[in-house]
């Protein structure tokens, strides 16, 4: 067969080739079997085709089209602020924007190119704001600096950073006790926070209660810091006041404590006015929880309660309880212990001291003028003391603190001046100092406990053109007196009583303060001194305390020094000392060595024993 032979040859040829290539020779040629099938392999295949439709249905087709996933939203609409008349356009020579810019410009210009990043004060949600909406409301407000610097809220002066913090804190607080040391601008911070509340629609009706002498001061400060806000002062006859209490559309109502107590007591429950915010200035006025003033203030319907005072504790830490009850952060009649008070204080009290925030403020220089009594004074004093002590001893166990108090007052008055001869070591020293002060064009404020002493001093200080400011001066005459003291270069001394002049007045142009006699409480003395030593003061303030040597004043001074140290301790952290901060009954007794004599000649001490924990305050 050809095919087979060809196949056989080709295999043999390939075997020879393999050998020639050095490959492996097959041991034997393959044998091709005759099957009749081989020719079929050589034929060209003839495939046939048939038509068939493609099956388009597939078992699984992955498909995906982009679609918008529905998203849920949480929304918050912020209340619209109250629209007021815009502030008076700034004076052409000093546009408001420029004034503001002037305050911030030096820092901006200091660096070339990139302006320095200003510190910003953001509002924080109050700790008791639980709902998301409430919390977002605060977080979404602009920083105070840009808010107040915006076109809507022009500030006459750039506040200090601690003041921005105070404003932000007040704005976010339902209950707040702003207890900054006197002179740090509690009034300004309060007014600005009120302004923001009104502008942001958080409040529409605000009641501010303050001591009567301070009303003109508040009016003036409102005009300075928020002149666009309408302020109404509660005054006039009963019918007018009744109308004012409930008149709608009065954003800010200012009343004094006495009118608040009197007018609201006459209104029925249904007639009682409601306020979005109640501010108590000099809130220590309600420290006696059961007083009519405290009861009335607590009964006023309001949504927010702010208290302002530079002396949250005048006598005892427990006084804070009265303020916390007003702020509604403790139950009615609640008596938190010191640990609880400390916890509440951290949450609801903001207190900054000058040392802390006003490092650049000129210092207050305290100096004690220890004076020897004049001969006439000395004689009058010794007689009065001897007779007084004898009388007290004779009272035996029927003696009360009032008896001792009367003797103290009599002796203090003699230490001021001898009523018979008019001799006064303090006056001599005062006149000497005043000559120097007047010669340099300076101004001084003098404080005394008694209006009688002030009236006695006035004619004796004529050459310095003294002005009098005490409770006997009608309210309407007081503002002009302060204005004259500020403006009249010949008026070198202002004679004030602690009671009337110690709070709320801005007299930082006076470089000297005289404490002609000592008050019972260091906090009140500090308030008095801080009329002069406060923000805006450009020079050091020299405080002179007159102390008559070897008299009751020296003994009181010693006790007051200890009190001052205690005062600082209580307001500091971790304080757990609950001793009274003012003169206690036992301390007043302790000013004299009082002994009751027995018939057998033996003597024993009389009066209350010193109380180690807490005592009755004077």
């Amino acid at each position, binding site marked *: 067969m050809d095919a087979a032979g060809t196949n056989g040859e080709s295999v043999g040829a390939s075997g020879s080739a393999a050998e020639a290539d050095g490959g492996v020779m097959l041991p034997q040629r393959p044998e091709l079997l005759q099957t009749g099938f081989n020719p079929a392999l050589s034929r060209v295949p003839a495939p046939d085709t048939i038509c068939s439709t493609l099956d388009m249905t597939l078992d699984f087709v992955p498909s995906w089209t982009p679609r918008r996933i529905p998203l849920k939203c949480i929304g918050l609409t912020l209340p619209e602020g109250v629209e007021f008349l815009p502030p008076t356009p700034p004076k052409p020579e000093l546009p408001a924007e420029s004034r503001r810019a002037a305050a911030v410009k030096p820092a901006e210009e200091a660096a070339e190119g990139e302006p320095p990043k200003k510190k910003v004060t953001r509002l924080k949600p109050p700790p008791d704001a639980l709902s998301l909406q409430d919390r977002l409301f605060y977080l*979404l407000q602009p920083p105070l600096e840009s808010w107040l610097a*915006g076109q809507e809220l022009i500030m006459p002066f750039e506040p200090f950073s601690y003041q921005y913090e105070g404003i932000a804190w007040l704005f976010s607080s339902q209950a707040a006790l702003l207890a900054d040391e006197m002179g740090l601008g509690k009034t300004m911070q309060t007014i600005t926070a009120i302004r923001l509340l009104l502008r942001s629609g958080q409040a529409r009706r605000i009641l501010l209660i303050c001591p009567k002498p301070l009303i003109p001061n508040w009016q003036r400060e409102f005009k300075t810091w928020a002149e666009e806000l309408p302020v109404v002062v509660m005054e006039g006859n009963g019918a007018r006041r009744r109308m004012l209490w409930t008149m709608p559309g009065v954003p800010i109502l200012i009343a004094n404590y006495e009118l608040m107590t009197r007018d609201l007591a006459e209104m029925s429950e249904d007639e009682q006015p409601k306020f979005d915010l109640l501010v108590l200035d000099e809130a220590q006025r309600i420290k006696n929880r059961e007083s009519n003033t405290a009861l009335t203030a607590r009964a006023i319907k309001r949504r927010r309660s702010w208290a302002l005072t530079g002396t949250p504790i005048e006598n005892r830490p427990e006084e804070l309880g009265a303020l916390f009850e007003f702020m509604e952060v403790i139950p009615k009649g609640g008596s938190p212990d010191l640990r609880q008070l400390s916890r509440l204080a951290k949450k609801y009290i903001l207190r900054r001291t000058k040392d802390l925030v006003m490092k650049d403020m000129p210092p207050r220089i305290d100096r004690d003028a220890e004076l020897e009594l004049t001969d006439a004074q000395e004689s009058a004093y010794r007689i009065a003391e001897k007779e007084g002590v004898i009388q007290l001893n004779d009272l035996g166990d029927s003696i009360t603190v009032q008896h001792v108090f009367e003797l103290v007052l009599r002796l203090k008055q003699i230490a001021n001046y001898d009523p018979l001869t008019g001799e006064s070591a303090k006056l001599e020293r005062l006149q000497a100092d005043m000559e120097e002060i007047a010669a340099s064009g300076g101004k001084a404020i003098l404080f005394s406990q008694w209006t009688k002493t002030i009236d006695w001093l006035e004619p004796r200080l004529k050459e310095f053109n003294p002005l009098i400011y005490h409770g006997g001066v009608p309210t309407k005459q007081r503002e002009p007196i302060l204005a004259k003291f500020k403006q009249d270069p010949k008026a070198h001394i202002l004679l004030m009583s602690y009671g009337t002049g110690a709070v709320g007045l801005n007299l930082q142009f006076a470089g000297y303060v005289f404490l002609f006699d000592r008050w019972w409480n260091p906090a009140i003395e500090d308030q008095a001194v801080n009329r002069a030593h406060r923000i805006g003061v450009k020079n050091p303030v020299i405080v002179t305390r007159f102390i008559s040597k070897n008299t009751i004043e020296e003994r009181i001074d010693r006790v007051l020094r200890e009190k001052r140290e205690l005062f600082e301790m209580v307001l500091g952290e971790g304080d757990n000392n609950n001793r009274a901060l003012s003169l206690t009954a036992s301390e007043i007794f302790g000013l004299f060595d009082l002994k009751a004599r027995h018939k057998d000649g033996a003597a024993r001490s009389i009066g209350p024993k010193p109380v180690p924990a807490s005592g009755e305050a004077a």
Partner: protein
Amino acid sequence: MSGSAKTDQLRLGFMETIEVEGRGHIGGLLITNQNGRPLEFQCTTPVRPNRTQEILFGETLRPWLLGELIGSTLLDRVAIKPSLVVTSDPCLLELRNHTEVPIAVAESATGGRRSVSGGDAGECRKLQLGGSMLRFHEAHNGDIDSLQKQKHLIPDSADLQEPLERVREALAETVRTVFAR
């Protein structure tokens, strides 16, 4: 209270998104007046792309998620429609393709007073508004012209990046208060 109706008023929108671990992205839109006072705030619930979306969208995932999905939802929901939406995230510029409201990325106007308002500044035009330089979507450069008329309503001292910080804080607060439960 339709803001843009009055010519002396300008309503600004400030939009930001944050990523919440394990939950996805949430977005917030704050509407303010021209002085930065807040008028309305909306924020979304968290949204997380699934694996398919991650694969198919590829690099366009973030613009789609943040701009088209979250941004459009927020703009639809606000009752006060802004004249301009400012953001810090360039991905949100994608939103401009789905809305008529101009969208801009705020950048610090470094170099101080260089005014580029309306002029060519590189590839896309920029507009200085307040203390910030705004960069708009390349395909919508006409937005600058429409804003020129209202530009005077924004004080020079305005910081258009500051409200974005507020939005981020509000979103973080929302996450803490609501979604973290």
